[in-house]
């Protein structure tokens, strides 16, 4: 890897070409959209908003395993605010969206135009995929950004570091092309979907052969009728104080039900086996920012706070008045959760 002046000296033609193809201020973002049964994922709609902050063109990329499902996602993508083109690829090879298989699709898409940026939601999939792409293109990437802006001297991002205890500002100079980033969903509102017919053009990407060496065996999803944790408007989370899986269910579920909330958990509760690990809120789990976050029996360790401290309103129910969670909670109730929560459920029902 060469330093910037050296890179420019070594590849002056690429630098000139790029400036020619993209006049100052004109960005063109390739936005990787995730979909589920043909509907664009809410986190991807937030990533679209982040891409809009670059004030340039946006081309959406939709990849999937089944033609029909991909077609539905493409139709949906065409109606998204600010999307001027859609590229799609469908093949059984992409069914499980393995990073090894999707990386060549992104690289092929980048060949379609002179893209300045590649963006996606900071999902598990994009986390696996985009760094792999970045390395193959020999560019850095900026993950989990909470703000994006572009200027003459590059693209500036902010992102949380040290479990959200510090905010780092980094700039990718224009010579880094494309600039790759993933957007934290809870930091950007969801982009609008325009009703009515769309004249946005969609083009199919020629299929790439499957990359050998990786095979998908099975996927196990935790079934739930509740809203998805990462995008729920309300979240009720339980911690180690819930004692066991049965008690967790008995105490937390009725409160979540009465509020129409998603259920979350602290790492301690997950490690103790009370709930599935996909429900973990924190630095190493999901980052949520709902309207209302109720922490039940959670002390509020740094690693947990990193996942929920941007919630609009935080309520803590914890019998320890000195628990760190009370320092961030808008409403703290020092009480035994086994009495307080059922009472709260009863009173909310009225």
């Amino acid at each position, binding site marked *: 890897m060469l330093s910037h002046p050296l890179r420019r000296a070594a590849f002056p033609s690429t630098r000139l070409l790029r400036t020619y193809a993209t006049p100052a201020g004109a960005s063109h973002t390739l936005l990787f959209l995730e979909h589920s049964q043909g509907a664009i994922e809410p986190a991807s709609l937030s990533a679209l908003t982040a891409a809009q902050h670059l004030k340039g063109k946006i081309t959406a990329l939709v990849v999937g395993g089944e033609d029909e499902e991909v077609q539905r996602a493409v139709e949906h993508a065409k109606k998204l605010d600010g999307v001027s083109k859609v590229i799609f690829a469908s093949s059984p090879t992409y069914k499980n969206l393995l990073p090894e298989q999707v990386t060549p699709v992104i690289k092929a898409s980048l060949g379609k135009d002179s893209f300045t940026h590649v963006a996606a939601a900071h999902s598990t999939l994009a986390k696996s*995929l985009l760094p792999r*792409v970045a390395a193959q293109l020999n560019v850095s990437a900026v993950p989990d950004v909470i703000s994006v802006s572009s200027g003459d001297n590059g693209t500036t991002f902010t992102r*949380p570091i040290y479990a959200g205890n510090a*905010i780092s500002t980094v700039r990718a100079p224009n010579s880094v092309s494309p600039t790759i980033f993933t957007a934290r969903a809870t930091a950007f509102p969801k982009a609008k979907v325009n009703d009515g017919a769309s004249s946005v053009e969609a083009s199919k990407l020629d299929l790439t052969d499957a990359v050998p060496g990786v095979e998908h*065996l099975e996927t196990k999803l935790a079934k739930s009728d509740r809203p*998805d944790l990462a995008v729920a408007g309300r979240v009720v989370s339980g911690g180690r104080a819930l004692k066991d899986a049965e008690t967790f269910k008995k105490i937390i579920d009725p409160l979540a039900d009465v509020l129409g909330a998603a259920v979350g958990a602290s790492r301690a509760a997950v490690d103790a086996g009370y709930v599935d690990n996909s429900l973990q809120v924190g630095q*190493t789990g999901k980052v949520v920012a709902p309207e209302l976050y109720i922490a039940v029996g959670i002390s509020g360790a740094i690693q947990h706070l990193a996942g929920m*401290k941007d919630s*609009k309103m935080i309520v803590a129910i914890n019998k320890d008045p000195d628990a760190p969670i009370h320092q961030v909670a808008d409403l703290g109730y020092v009480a035994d959760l086994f009495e307080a929560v059922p009472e709260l459920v009863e009173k909310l029902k009225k």
Partner: protein
Amino acid sequence: MRPSAINRLKVLVPIKRCVDYSVKIRVVNNAVDTNNPFDEIAVEEAVRLREKMGTKIETITALTIGPTKSQETLRTALAMGADKGVHVEIPESSSPEPLGIAKTIEALIKRDKPDIVIMGKQAIDGDQGMTGQMLAGLLEWPQGTQASKVVIREGEKDVDVTREIDGGSETVRLRLPAIITTDLRLNEPRYASLPNIMKAKKKPIEKVTPESLGVDLTPILETVGVAEPPKRVGGGKVESVDELVAKLKEAGVV
């Protein structure tokens, strides 16, 4: 894919020295440093593979890229059961990017030819979570990120990795050589016993420089600044469930 004449696996475990996860961040210099917790899980997994597979594991090499102090990190890995350490020494002041780190590891992989690389899914300081995937991308090796279960199959040609994904888990079969990054749930790292800590002092640590590996760790991105996040102030306590419900209604959240 590199064919190996005898099915004995070389395991490489890249680790990073980080500020302790329980420390409230103020100034890094005064804080307690420790191994990145995800990396301890990676070392533990490598040691467990040996415990399960015995002589089929040829060597476990721990690797760290960092200032002089990072040697302590290597000693901890050696005390946990790694055989030898490689220390790529860089100045205290430098903060390389994941791509630079990945290129350094790539250079060592091309030199030492490990069959399996196990590393943490993210460091808890930069929280980037990219190095493993970048390394897999550079080498064009398969990747099993956020692993909660790792099973090397009979014949030592493939590894089955169960990964944590949004909403559940998935299992992939990777042809070796491959890169695995560890989720917290993969295992519970052991404490190094005193005799093992003493033994670790005799294990070899090789020192290399980025220059000798032909890699440049100059960052591509410019760090403009680091700031404190906006402070959240607690809003006080309520005395009863009735008061709690009333306040929630007042705020319009229920």
